[in-house]
């Protein structure tokens, strides 16, 4: 973007919004919106708190375990649905329902199943993330050129070789897109899970801050979460760009 002949850097718009936030905050219109500088100061304080650090460890661990499970289960399931019509007919409807359903409503049920602890959070992350991974993997496998499969067969590929050397690679762009979208949904899952359970990790912190009207800390925590989600998705996007070069020529 250029403005009055000058090139404006990418993050400039963010700066504008920060300044706007600062001004509105200084006007003291609403107690829920403290000045941005206060939020920044609170962020610096927050990351030094042992309670934040242990909450981050808990949250990150639940998120990673949930995501790994979702990826490990989602990719094979998507492949199965992409390759076998019967699996697609049996499962397709459910995957589509779950991928668009308001899953937050199920989290209380998860609490009954998994108790008030980390397991519920892991289950929430898993449940939020897996469906889009399944759907994208399925789409990727469906798009593989039939002649690539025939080629592998005509040169005597075993089933493991067919999957390991052809299908995974040919569907990789879609699989990565699914993982990226899954990660973003997984962040939602971890936050919603922790908020509902309310005694674990960030959920407990959010609960404390909002109940005691500690708005700068509340916003600081929100910003940290947003930044985390953005960084994670940018990392996957970078990996996607690396495989992009062959997505167009398959």
């Amino acid at each position, binding site marked *: 973007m250029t403005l009055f002949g000058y090139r404006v850097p990418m993050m400039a718009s963010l700066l504008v919004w920060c300044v706007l936030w600062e001004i509105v905050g200084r006007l003291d219109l609403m107690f829920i919106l403290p000045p941005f500088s206060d939020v920044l100061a609170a962020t610096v304080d927050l990351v030094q708190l042992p309670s934040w650090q242990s909450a981050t460890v808990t949250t990150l661990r639940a998120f990673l375990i949930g995501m790994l499970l979702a990826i490990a289960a989602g990719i094979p399931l998507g492949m199965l649905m992409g390759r076998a019509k019967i699996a697609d007919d049996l499962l397709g409807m459910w995957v589509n329902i779950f991928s668009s359903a308001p899953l937050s409503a199920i989290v209380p049920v998860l609490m009954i199943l998994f108790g008030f602890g980390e397991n519920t959070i892991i289950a929430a992350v898993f449940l939020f993330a897996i469906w889009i991974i399944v759907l994208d993997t399925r789409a990727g496998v469906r798009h593989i050129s039939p002649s690539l499969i025939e080629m592998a067969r005509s040169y005597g590929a075993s089933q493991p070789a067919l999957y390991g050397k052809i299908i995974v690679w040919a569907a990789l762009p879609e699989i990565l897109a699914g993982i990226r979208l899954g990660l973003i949904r997984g962040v939602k899952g971890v936050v919603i899970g922790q908020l509902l359970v309310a005694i674990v990790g960030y959920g407990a912190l959010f609960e404390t801050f909002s109940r005691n009207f500690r708005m700068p800390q509340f916003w600081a925590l929100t910003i940290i979460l947003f930044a985390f989600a953005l960084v994670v998705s940018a990392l996957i996007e970078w990996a996607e760009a690396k*495989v992009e070069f062959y997505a167009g020529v398959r």
Partner: protein
Amino acid sequence: MRAAAIRNETVMTEPAVDAIVEVRGISKSYGSVEALRDIDLDFPRGKLGPSGSGKTTLLKIIAGLIGADGGTVSVNGKKVSAPGPERAFVFQDFALLPWATVLRNVAFGLELRGTSKEERETTARRYIKDVGLAGFEDKYPHELSGGMRQRVGLARALCVDADVLLLDEPFSAVDEQNRRKFQEDLIRLRTNQNKTFIFVTHSIEEAVYISDRIVLLSPRPGRVSRIIEPQIDRSGDPDRIHRDRHYLDTVEEIWQGLKQYVE
């Protein structure tokens, strides 16, 4: 190479005895469309024999990629129903791995067979040179032209050292200059590889130019309508073939016979 030449000569005298691929009573339907009916064919060893009217189905049945509704295919006297190492397929759309280099693509058939990396790459380099792609080993398919991609597909098929090469309209996605060059290369490869090439083509000129035996299939249902064995001397300059008396006569003869199916 000398052995190959001698072998070809014996084949010329006794073609029926030494058939490498035998097709017996093959039929295949797609729903209500009868694609092939009762096909009987022999493909003599060391010869090129394309079929006329786009019968990819027959080629894929020979390759074992699709099953026939009836009839049998034998290769080297053994009945086959699945892909096997004695047959290699060259695909119309090349079917190269876009994420792999030319070298890995050419060696891929051997990779699937579990040949060691060093051995398969040595073999692959040799065939890459044979098809005229030396220097392109580390390029990716999207960096190559259509003609070069098909050369990769051909090198991959040569690499596994099959007796029969099945080519499914290999030149249809290749531009005209490359196609001519490729056809010349195929004549050269045929003389020094001692392999049987069976390929499908729509082009009468192409069929007559490179084939020892041409099988014309009639459309819907596909049946063998004629078998022609053009007597063309291909030992000299490949450009001379285009002006050869037999070449021109055979092209004309086939065209006259096919005219009835047009429209």
